[in-house]
């Protein structure tokens, strides 16, 4: 699929794809949650994120201008046309070659780190010069605030729980942390969004994110790992090895039965 990529479109797709891919990972828990109530909670949150992604993809498709729709945007783009944060595509429930996965600690931690980032982003996007984006953000910020609280409570419970749960949280933190640098790695796309009033540069979220995440980590008895020079590049379309497998599964139906409805 050809995509007429502009900085404005890429800015929107970074947010839309982060929501979509994070939703897909969370949805892997459906029917596998540690307890029935949390299974429902995880899939409720996945559906919130999917709703946000749908609204953004519909809006992005209209701006793109070739008459694409949300389904084509989600299911027919290739790996390098996705611009999600790399953290969102890392295995969550199932393990893979380079990631143990399957630990509930990874799920609650990632959910918390991303929810806090998205909440801060939505808060700022509510004042976007793009009226449609501002409206989507106004609705989404309430959902993100709840996700942050729910996941943050789990981080505290497990971090400040037993020796076993604390050790697992520390391991999950060590796995996730290298991918957080990308959340604040502003580039020319961010500059263009700031110039047009579309939204903030990612770097502008960093101080608030560090403060809010730090407060929860402290309550959980966890320490943020030292930062490293590594900066992942999913927001530029260059992904880890996990996204391709994920898209193969996610897009299979639409690619096998284009336009299928049921």
């Amino acid at each position, binding site marked *: 699929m050809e995509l007429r990529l502009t900085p404005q479109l890429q800015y929107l797709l970074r947010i839309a794809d982060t929501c979509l891919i994070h939703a897909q990972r969370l949805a892997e828990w459906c029917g596998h949650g540690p307890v029935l109530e949390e299974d429902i909670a995880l899939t409720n949150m996945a559906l919130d994120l999917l709703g946000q992604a749908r609204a953004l993809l519909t809006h992005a498709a209209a701006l793109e201008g070739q008459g694409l729709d949300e389904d084509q945007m989600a299911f027919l783009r290739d790996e390098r046309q996705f611009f999600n944060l790399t953290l969102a595509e890392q295995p969550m429930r199932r393990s893979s070659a380079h990631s143990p996965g399957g630990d509930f600690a990874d799920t609650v931690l990632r959910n918390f780190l991303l929810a806090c980032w998205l909440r801060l982003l939505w808060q700022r996007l509510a004042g976007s010069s793009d009226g449609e984006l501002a409206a989507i953000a106004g609705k989404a910020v309430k959902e993100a605030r709840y996700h942050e609280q729910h996941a943050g*409570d789990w981080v505290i419970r497990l971090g400040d729980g037993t020796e076993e749960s604390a050790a697992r949280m520390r391991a999950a933190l060590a796995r996730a942390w290298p991918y957080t640098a990308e959340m604040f790695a502003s580039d020319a796309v961010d500059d263009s969004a700031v110039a047009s009033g579309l939204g903030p540069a990612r770097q502008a979220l960093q101080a608030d994110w560090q403060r809010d995440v730090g407060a929860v980590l402290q309550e959980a008895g966890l320490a943020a790992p030292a930062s490293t020079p590594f900066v992942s590049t999913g927001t530029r379309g260059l992904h880890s090895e996990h996204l391709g497998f994920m898209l193969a599964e996610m897009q299979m139906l639409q690619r096998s039965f284009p336009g299928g409805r049921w």
Partner: protein
Amino acid sequence: MTDQNERPEPGTTTTEWPLWEVFVRPKAGLDHKHCGSLHAADAAMAVQLAREVYTRRQEGTSVWVVKSSDITASDPGDKAMYFDPMEDKVYRHPSFYKLPGSVDHM
């Protein structure tokens, strides 16, 4: 019976969270109504999970939870003694009064 909110004795493990009864208020002005139960580790988690399980289709604007073990219930064995005597006391219903037309919903 021990308080289930307290930490278990060393060397013992609890495999199930305590049970909570959930009450949801559908909208302002109406009463909270019992709608079911769920398992949660403590009250804060019970409120969150009640929101997830019982209000996901816009059923509520407020949630109460109470530990099931904190509810004292009448004994089913007392049912006949407690409730059957009310069967033939129709005069306890205020149905023998004429209400002014302007009084609704009595």
